[in-house]
């Protein structure tokens, strides 16, 4: 294997242009097969049409992409590198493991890619007020960041439970000038923050853009978020091929709502030899409290889209659980449901304990502290490695860095900070 593991700098990437829609989906009604759609109160329908039209105009506008790509390069620090994890590869003794480093993005996670794209759309729509939901706080921080940069008012809804476990991110948002509103309804986590953000949007729709953070929600959001995150997959594919001369055998990413995964998968979905694996949160175990929507849920409608959901027999949404706030969501983006149903991607689940082990594994072998969300993907690689050979390759998407999770990890390990 003369090429693999070679540490030469990745070839300088051409600046990404307009996202390529390899699947041709969603269709005109916003569907990925039976999934997706626009299941929202009538008040929002006109705003969704307006957003769709603004996005289609922007998509065809070279100046829009020039501005976005220049911000992605100079402000976010793109392209993010891929890194050959030599020590992790050696330790696991199986496949060659490469890591796409979205943790190196400005603000520490991939969320900024979408936040920047949508803030430029909001400007085109003439909206001066931005609302967002956040789970782990990464999307809230990304939104607060781009609002600070663009001089827009920013309100972030965050479940009271998440406000507690992600205190440093709450403070970051405050310093950035955003108002963080704790949500006390329902399970007080991401799903309730989305409910509250939608209620705000219904009330202030004429002045406000809802900057949704994951590839969920009514059409056109899952499409827009995927397109803005597809830069991850576009870069990673080119970098990997440049580095190794081949495509990876496996591409692995964590899935909550699934924006990082869908951005990564979109680069490889047309390469049938590449096995796409999405890793959900099994929480305390699949028979207990978890957030493994596609492993244990069934199709239904939440937050404007038809997709897999955790629900009881009466169609009431169940509370999800994960140690990772970013995966603690009882739904999933509709395109993931489609990739599952068409068997183009596989979805597996990893427990809190396994994710904590994955967190330590990457930290100790490579000196990279991962967020708890992608720690689930690391844990899955740890599980699958013994079954793979050294001539196989795995490309892991490291969606964010773990600084925000140190409190949670310390608590889980019984350490008082």
């Amino acid at each position, binding site marked *: 294997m003369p090429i693999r593991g070679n540490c030469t700098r990745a070839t300088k990437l051409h600046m990404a242009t307009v996202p390529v829609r390899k699947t041709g989906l969603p269709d005109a*009604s916003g569907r990925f097969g039976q999934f997706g*759609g*626009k*299941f*929202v*109160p*009538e*008040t*929002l*329908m*006109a*705003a969704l*049409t307006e957003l769709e039209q603004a996005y289609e105009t922007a998509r065809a506008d070279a100046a829009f992409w020039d501005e976005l790509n220049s911000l992605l390069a100079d402000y976010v620090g793109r392209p993010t590198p891929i890194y050959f994890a030599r020590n992790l590869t050696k330790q696991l003794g199986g496949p060659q493991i490469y890591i796409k480093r979205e943790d190196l993005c400005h603000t520490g996670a991939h969320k900024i890619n979408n936040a920047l794209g949508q803030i430029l759309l909001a400007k085109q729509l003439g909206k001066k007020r931005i609302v967002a939901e956040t789970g782990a706080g990464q999307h809230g921080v990304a939104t607060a960041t781009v609002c600070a940069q663009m001089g827009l008012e920013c309100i972030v809804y965050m479940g009271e439970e998440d406000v507690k476990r992600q205190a440093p991110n709450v403070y970051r948002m405050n310093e950035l000038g955003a108002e963080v509103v704790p949500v006390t*309804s*329902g399970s007080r986590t991401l*799903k*309730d923050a*989305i*409910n509250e953000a*939608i*209620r705000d949007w*219904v*009330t*202030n*729709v*004429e002045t406000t853009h809802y900057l949704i953070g994951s590839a969920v929600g009514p059409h056109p959001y899952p499409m827009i978020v995927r397109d803005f995150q597809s830069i991850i997959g576009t870069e990673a594919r080119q970098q990997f091929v440049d580095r190794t001369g081949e495509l990876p055998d496996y591409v692995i990413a964590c899935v909550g709502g699934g924006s990082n995964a869908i951005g990564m998968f979109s680069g490889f979905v047309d390469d049938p030899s590449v096995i796409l694996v999405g890793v959900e949160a099994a929480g305390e175990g699949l028979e207990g409290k978890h957030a493994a929507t596609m492993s244990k849920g069934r199709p*239904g*409608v*939440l*937050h*404007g889209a038809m997709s897999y*959901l955790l*629900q009881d*027999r*009466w*169609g*009431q*949404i169940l509370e999800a659980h994960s140690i990772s706030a970013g995966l603690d969501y009882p739904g999933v983006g509709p395109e993931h449901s489609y990739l599952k149903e068409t068997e183009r991607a596989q979805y597996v689940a990893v427990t809190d304990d396994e994710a904590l082990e994955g967190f330590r594994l990457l930290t100790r072998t490579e000196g990279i502290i991962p967020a708890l969300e992608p720690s689930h993907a690391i844990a899955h690689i740890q599980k699958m490695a013994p079954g793979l050979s050294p001539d196989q390759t795995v490309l892991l998407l490291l969606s964010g860095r773990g600084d925000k999770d140190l409190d949670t990890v310390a608590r889980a390990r019984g350490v008082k900070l």
Partner: protein
Amino acid sequence: MNGKQKIQQAFTTANADGRAALAMFVTSGFPTLETTVPIIKAVADAGADVIEVGMPFSDPLGEGLTIQKSSHAALLAGTTPQTCFDAIREARAAGVTTPIVLMGYYNPIFACGLGEFCRAAADAGADGLIVQDLPTPEAAPLLDECDRYGLAFIPLVALTSTDESIAASCQRGSGFVYCISVLGVTGVRTQVSDRILGLVSRVRAKTDLPIAVGFGVSTAEHVARIATYADGAAIGSALINAIADGAPEGAAERAGEYVKSLLPGARRKVVAK
């Protein structure tokens, strides 16, 4: 008469009587499962023209705090689509003839199976459905089942609705057209904005269906103003507040008293049509 005709007839009768129709919303199973039938009966006896029986949903993103809380309490009390059907059946057995509309969110209906849900609803004595998160472009499969079982599908139109979407909703809808008076979620407000007048006239230009105005309506004065330009008023959160304001034993009586307090507002000083 099927459900569609029955609901439309209720508006016609009220208007012919010199009144705006009152469509009153109650959350099924709130404050307890046992109070639902007495509350429906009290609201009917007090003079409501249409009763909206709310099916609680865990994630009611179109609701303000009042109905969020009543929905949450009703779910904790054990409310399911089945208990909603049972309550309607018992209310019919107790002599309630007022048209009854089930109001809720799509996922519990979808989980039940669209055909099975509509069959059971019609069988229990319901006349129609209002689904807050099911705009007309997504409603075709449910509309087919409503048609099969003679249930009205009452469309919601909003201040932001385009003329095209109003036309499509009115064409496929039946019973009445529900005009949302505000940008926002349900809940009591001090004023009902006259911005709704423009919407009502746009709807009037597209349909002969009766028009009711709801969201934020809570007092006889609000109803009196709506009675000058619409065929009916829809009231929810204020009735839920009355129901919640005391012990469950007195809930039905308080509900009836509240409905009676609206009647003077509903009466038109000059018959509009």
